[in-house]
């Protein structure tokens, strides 16, 4: 085995939004509320993304979630396992989920150490009674419903809310680089999940049947236009252009990428110049959600095709 193959690597990155509705719609045994159906386009998108990336046999899934919000720096789940009941405080009627997850604490500590070396504040959360946030749970569950791969759970730092979008994003780019270095040192094969919705303006009313899909559409046209612009940049491999317009996207479409998950992942992937695969896009109570994957193998294919030409 060559040194290169011993070195850890990121084998995939997925924009993996976390509306609890998609878990509610699939009627998994872990979730108490039951539905007739709902949000299939997203759920089918997740199925295809899952099939593609789990075939790569990752050792670990890393998830950055907007629903673990921290004031002082970037925090990591720091115990080997967490289990309990997650009740969504906003949609408790849809999401009451029994979770039981394993954490790759060694890798989490490595990322925290790399981040600290780069000047970020990082912390390990080691209270066993800590309730893992539903963003982490939904994204991980949709990518790996068997929960048989350990995760690294990373909090979302609130800097963009106190200072500016640009400042928050700059920190996330650093955290992404720290993540990449740590994965390489660890020898792990890792899949990254950016648990972000795109346009994020919600309806403030709910149909009597929450899964009534006749009521589901994007909240506003401008949000849809923004989503399509952003997705187009993903599909054409223009992630540096994408990162440049994200602060504007945050303001104009109230985008949840403000929480930094997407910037973190794109940075860890070294801002891919190869096309991303869009597995699905649909709205959830008016917000724009896309499941999008980046597979570095596509980069290698693009390079070899260029050489052949």
């Amino acid at each position, binding site marked *: 085995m060559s040194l290169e193959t011993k070195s850890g690597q990121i084998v995939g990155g997925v924009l993996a939004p976390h509306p609890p509705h998609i878990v509610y719609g699939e009627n998994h045994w872990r979730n108490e509320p039951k539905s007739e159906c709902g949000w299939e386009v997203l759920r089918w998108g997740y199925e295809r993304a899952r099939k593609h990336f789990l075939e790569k046999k990752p050792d670990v899934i890393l998830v950055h979630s907007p629903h673990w*919000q921290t004031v*002082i720096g970037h925090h990591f789940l720091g115990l080997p396992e967490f289990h309990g009941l997650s009740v969504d405080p906003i949609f408790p009627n849809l999401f009451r989920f029994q979770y039981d997850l394993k954490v790759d604490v060694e890798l989490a500590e490595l990322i925290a150490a790399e981040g600290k070396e780069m000047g970020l504040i990082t912390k390990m959360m080691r209270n066993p009674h800590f309730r893992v946030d539903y963003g982490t749970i939904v994204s991980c569950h949709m990518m790996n419903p068997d929960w048989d791969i350990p995760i690294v759970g990373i909090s979302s730092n609130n800097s963009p809310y106190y200072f500016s979008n640009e400042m928050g994003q700059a920190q996330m780019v650093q955290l992404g680089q720290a993540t990449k270095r740590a994965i390489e040192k660890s020898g792990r094969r890792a899949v990254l999940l950016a648990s972000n919705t795109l346009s994020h303006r919600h309806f403030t009313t709910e149909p009597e049947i929450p899964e009534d899909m006749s009521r589901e559409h994007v909240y506003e046209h401008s949000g849809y236009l923004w989503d399509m612009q952003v997705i187009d940049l993903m599909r054409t491999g223009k992630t540096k252009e994408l990162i440049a317009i994200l602060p504007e996207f945050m303001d104009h479409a109230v985008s949840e990428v403000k929480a930094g998950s997407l910037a973190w992942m794109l940075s860890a992937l070294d801002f891919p110049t190869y096309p991303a695969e869009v597995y699905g896009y649909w709205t959830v109570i008016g917000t724009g959600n896309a499941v999008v994957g980046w597979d570095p193998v596509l980069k290698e294919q693009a390079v070899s095709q260029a050489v052949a030409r």
Partner: protein
Amino acid sequence: MILKAYVVPGQPHPLLAPEKNAGWASLRSSYEAVGREIANSGAELILVYSTQWFSVIGHLFQVDPNPTWTLVDQNWYEFGEIPYSFRIDPEFGKLYCRLCKEHGMQAATVAYHGFPIDTGTVVALKLLNPDNAIPASVVSCNIYAEREETRALGFAARAAIEAYGKKTIVVCVTNLSNRYEVAEIDPAQDRISSQKDDEWNRKLLEMLGEGRLEDVAQVARDFAREANADMGFKAIWWLGAVMGEHNKYDGKVWDYQPVWGTGNAIVELTPNERKQMDWEKEFDEGPIQTFAAEEGGTGLESHNVLAEGPDVHAQSEMSSQDDYGAPAPVHRDDAIRTDRAPKPVGPYPHARRAGGLLYLSGIGPRTPGTGEIPGMIRDGAGSVIGHDIEVQTRACIENVKAILEDAGSSLEKVLDVTVYLTDMQRDFDRFNKVYGEYFGTIQPTRTTVGVDSLPTPIAVEVKVIAAE
């Protein structure tokens, strides 16, 4: 019947780590004193609105009779965990929810095992009602709700309290300024994260201390913009509506402290129908927006006693303009203005009195009457080439002394001084020498700050708080 209302902070620090900071300990102690007051009040219900319980789909109402869990805060877990088991009055929550629905609002009750009660509510109930002697009811804070929807939620609470017939304590859990320190700090050195936030907090607390809840509700937008207030300070709109949207309260500020840079106060408001209304003090932010979900209004506005008052807009329209283009100041008997100090360079008085204290505006060295700046050093052509900090410091303190004396106080009663120097490196020692002549034996607390410039070309300005 509403017995009293309280504004309280929702940070876990006073509950979990009071030993780490004197201010956190003080908040803990004030919280507990209020808790004792509530226990002895004969209250039969505590109604809580917390800015930390977010909702998106309308508002949620807790109706689980006994929510039980161990809370580990997502930020402050290092300070420990908080086991809780609360006694909730589900009937009141259901009534409140039903009234909201009947008036066109989106509302739902929640009674799910393991539902995550927010840190703000947990802290407030643990400290205000430690033995669960009084049943509680809790309502969420909708992140999208604007003023009209939040007021409608408040009117519905008032109607529900009246219909339920129980003696009620209303608790509003909100921080004031909400700018956290984002790095690790030594807890013992905790302070409000900016002077601007601190000044805004104090302005609001001055008004609340006078019982002027509705006035505070009217300036909530300004406060939110200037001091990054907790959830846009919408909690005060809810509280104002619950309490009837007027200023007829006796106010008491129990405490005001920083927690990790944010502003945290405990305020008590007791309805006092006999209180003399000073309508000239009213603020009004202007035309009221329509709450789209309820065209034609909720029908709950009849609880708004402000409508019974005189037309405050008409009064403000009759006001003339002052020198600075602002409306002429309305008469307030707590404002101090004197000819023995230089004329202010903006629309503010020399000082205000509140709660037994005198709060002075920033006072410079200009000469009363002429406005000339003493201690200016000029070259042969008359151009200013420097200043004499000792002369300016002396003039500054003499101006402060005149204001204090006209307010019935004196330099000997000064408690706290903030000093602004435009050239700290050059002037500090000589400034300190003159300062010592005046305050060496009085020993007020002092903060000295270097600034780029002051509104006039002076080199020093001081801001003072003194006892009356």
